[in-house]
């Protein structure tokens, strides 16, 4: 075992050195922007978003994000598939104290609202659909932690999740129909909606729409994953 640890350390150090040698030729803190600078120069005109990261995530590289949404959907589906049992229930033993339950009740709406705040402001501030969705899911997580009997309405959540996903693809397809390209931002580029609004809420083309969809989707997905993880099989 000692030998194994020693071997592991030596091996890893060699690999680490190798990576470092490679990285040493990618100088830290220096400007290496090609496409990045193009984004920064054009992001406001081309997408209406102030947050260049968001513009990249949802608009310029929206295809990645569609994939990312899919990945999370797969995880949620996969967890659901693997932990599927004919009958499952929560089997928690102790309920949270009144401190936790009451705290959760007070926090729940606030956390939800803040989640919504995050995804709806994605084009203006850091954040967006995923952190927003994660925040929403945290609200549900707290409910699960505080109450032993709490369960989300699965059916509704699953349908919401599916509809949100379909909504995202549909937005992309509308782009294809209107602008000739899949995931084309028809709101900004064709309708030019919000062009005099840059920096304010109603701008950024389809980014807030997509981020809202993603926020809802991620929120329901993560909640679903939590739900699946904390439940156990019970005999009928």
């Amino acid at each position, binding site marked *: 075992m000692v030998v194994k640890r020693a071997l592991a350390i030596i091996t890893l150090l060699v690999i680490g050195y190798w990576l470092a040698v490679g990285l040493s030729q990618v100088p830290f803190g220096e400007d290496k922007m090609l496409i990045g600078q193009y984004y920064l120069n054009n992001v406001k005109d081309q997408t209406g978003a102030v947050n260049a990261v968001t513009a990249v995530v949802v608009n310029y590289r929206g295809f990645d994000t569609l994939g990312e949404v899919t990945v999370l959907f797969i995880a949620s589906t996969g967890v659901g598939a693997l932990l599927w049992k004919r009958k499952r229930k929560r089997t*928690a*033993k*102790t*309920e*949270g104290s009144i401190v*936790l339950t009451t705290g959760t009740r007070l926090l729940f709406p606030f*956390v939800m609202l*803040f989640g919504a*705040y*995050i995804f709806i*402001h994605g084009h*203006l*501030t*850091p*954040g967006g659909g995923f*952190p927003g969705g*994660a*925040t929403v899911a*945290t609200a549900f*997580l*707290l409910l*699960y*932690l505080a109450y*032993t009997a709490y369960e989300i309405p699965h059916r509704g959540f699953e349908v919401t999740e599916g509809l949100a996903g379909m909504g995202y693809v549909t937005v992309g397809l509308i782009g294809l129909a209107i602008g000739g390209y899949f995931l084309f931002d028809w709101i900004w580029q064709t309708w030019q909606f919000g062009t005099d609004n840059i920096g304010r809420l109603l701008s950024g083309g389809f980014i807030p729409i997509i981020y809202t969809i993603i926020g809802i989707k991620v929120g329901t997905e993560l909640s679903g994953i939590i739900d699946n993880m*904390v439940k156990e099989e019970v005999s009928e």
Partner: protein
Amino acid sequence: MIGINIYLTLITIATLLSMYRVFRGPTTVDRLVAVDIMTTITTGLMVLFALYYKRMIFLDVALVYAILAFGGVIAFARYLEGGV
């Protein structure tokens, strides 16, 4: 920003001390307590960064972080208690 070095030094020391407790334990709850303190400190650090970079937008990040950290700590605590 006169005191920036002082703040950062204090925060760094605090983080290192907490880190010691994270690694040292001895119980899982000890580690968790230390992590909880670290997340609180990190939230503070984020807020300070917002000021340093003059970007208010980082405050939102800090709040998201605080929320997620709270959820995480509670989850672990409830798990250790056997109450999930």
